[in-house]
């Protein structure tokens, strides 16, 4: 544990020295302070055990492409020919030299490999000198390697990670999971949760369960949201009191994330909880709960759907109407959102009458 903390400190210390060596204005000093934590993430946790060298001059800032597909570690793992933990030694125009520390999938043909870089949708490439992480690579036409996805060339990984037996996805997930389960700063653990949330295997679920007990509210709430969205009934039970009686100390966006995750619930055993969530003061929670009930397409959900016809929020009422229409096959009573808004009483009356006479 101590070693890990020391390793974490090396690049941060060097970054600090780099900034100190410049005559800093007040603005730059403030900038340096926040950069220390941020750089720790962006160089893939800054857990490198190798000293930075002369090629480690900061790269020009990369402005993000703004609309992007979310990270999907399952897809990256599946489509990569090789996955390696390594460190970028240098970037030479359209390629980079990558030192390979560990192989997670496939066979690397050398300890140091050249990788062909690719531009993302905005024409920029996201690999930077001294970047450390788990790289997802594809063989190219020349027999070498290229970045698999220019938007996500790598994810965070400790260079001293243990590569376990198991499928490539299990290995990749376990490696990222080390960042969550070992001592790290909160930013690193939050990023680990983000990556793990995109993997729907048992190992990721187990790691997220650990995350849902973390002290950091962001790690805890984001882990809980990921678990609820993957239909984890235990997590939903934990989430219920939070959603019904939101603790004041939890930021609203974290509560909104948890509310949204409820729509992913599919297990019919969750119906009693979903029904109770329909009494939440948050319309986001109620919309997600009624949407989950709608998508179950089972008669056990009818009672809760009928109750939702009287909800004060139109989105909730719409989901109830459309859910009942889908369940009964009455397509003529299944309007589009806009049509419902124009004359919703007609639809509400129909479904209430249906409920009385069924």
């Amino acid at each position: 544990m101590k070693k890990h903390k020391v390793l974490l400190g090396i690049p941060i210390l060097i970054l600090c020295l780099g900034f100190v060596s410049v005559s800093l204005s007040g603005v730059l000093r403030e900038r340096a302070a926040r950069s220390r934590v941020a750089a720790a993430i962006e160089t893939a946790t800054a857990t490198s055990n190798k000293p930075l060298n002369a090629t480690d001059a900061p790269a020009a800032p990369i402005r993000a492409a703004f609309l992007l597909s979310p990270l999907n570690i399952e897809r990256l793992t599946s489509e990569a020919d090789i996955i390696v933990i390594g460190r970028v030694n240098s970037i030479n125009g359209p390629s980079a030299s990558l030192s390979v520390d560990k192989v997670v999938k496939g066979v690397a043909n050398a300890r140091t490999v050249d990788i062909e870089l690719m531009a993302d949708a905005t024409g920029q490439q996201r690999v930077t000198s001294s970047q450390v992480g788990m790289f997802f690579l594809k063989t190219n036409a020349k027999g070498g390697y290229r970045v698999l996805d220019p938007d996500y060339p790598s994810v965070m990984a400790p260079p001293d990670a243990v590569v376990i037996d198991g499928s490539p996805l299990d290995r990749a997930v376990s490696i990222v999971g080390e960042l969550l389960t070992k001592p790290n700063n909160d930013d690193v653990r939050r990023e680990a949760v983000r990556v793990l949330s995109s993997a729907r295997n048992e190992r990721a679920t187990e790691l997220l369960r650990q995350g849902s007990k973390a002290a950091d509210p962001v790690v805890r709430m984001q882990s809980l949201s990921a678990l609820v969205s993957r239909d984890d009934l235990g997590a939903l039970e934990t989430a219920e009191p939070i959603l019904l009686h939101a603790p004041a100390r939890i930021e609203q966006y974290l509560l909104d994330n948890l509310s949204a995750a409820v729509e992913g619930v599919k297990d019919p055993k969750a119906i009693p909880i979903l029904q109770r969530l329909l009494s939440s003061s948050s319309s986001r929670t109620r919309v997600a709960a009624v949407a989950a009930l709608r998508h179950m397409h089972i008669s056990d959900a009818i009672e809760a759907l009928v109750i939702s016809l009287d909800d004060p929020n139109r989105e909730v009422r719409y989901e109830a109407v459309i859910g009942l229409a889908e369940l009964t096959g009455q397509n003529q009573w299944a309007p589009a959102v806009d049509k419902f808004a124009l004359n919703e009483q007609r639809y509400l009356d129909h479904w209430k009458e249906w409920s009385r006479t069924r």
Partner: protein
Amino acid sequence: MEHADGIPFCVEESSTTEPTAPAEVKPTITGPNTMWWFNGATPSSYSDLTQITLSTEDTGISYSWSVVTGGSKVSLSNQNTANVTLASVGMSQDANDVGIQVVVDGQVSDQFNITVRAPHSLNLSSTTHSSSANFGYRTEITYTIRDQFTNLLPGRAIPVNEHFATGIVADFSGMDWEQTDDSGTTLPLPIFFDAIEGETSSHFPTAQAPQSPLGSTRVCHWSQDILVGSATVGAGRRVQSNTFQKYRDHGAHENVTSPAP
């Protein structure tokens, strides 16, 4: 029926109208029951669904296809052949609200019903805030794309774009943050995030890593539209309008209107 497939109600991918009497020669119609409309955009991944072909296997001398209901949602071509082509020109307001009929040598078919689906709204999935070495912070606001029945779009590639409808408006006196370019991309699935970053350290005020709790110092904002069906800025169907707000330590979508046709 799997919700993720985004197929509403009891609509099947393909069906056939049933003749009511075996001895009759009432024509039958076969083809898809679902079409898609993107406000004039024609994404290649949906090329089989923005324009479809309906067929009758009944052979005859004369064919006459017509739209019986929902004529404002589809247009027909090759109406006097055995295979009619439908192009979407509007979206359904009810499931199966477009009715097609064919007359073959004077024999009238049963009505064949179609739903024209369209991207209609965004559903907020999650928001995350993280530190950025280059820009102070990075906020990711993730959405799924829904149709007019609030179903998730199918698991196909889908182009999207953002259009900034106004220039930058300063909220912080003396600020010199810059408006970024609006852009588009093609997603592998109908889920995406909007990344909002702070600014480089040479700008004023200096961007900060996300604070806890999040800060309330606004720096600048502008209006943003999000459109689906095309990667070209401003093209496709608008599904959301909002204020693209940059705080000193995080970003946000505010004053959200979705749907926003």
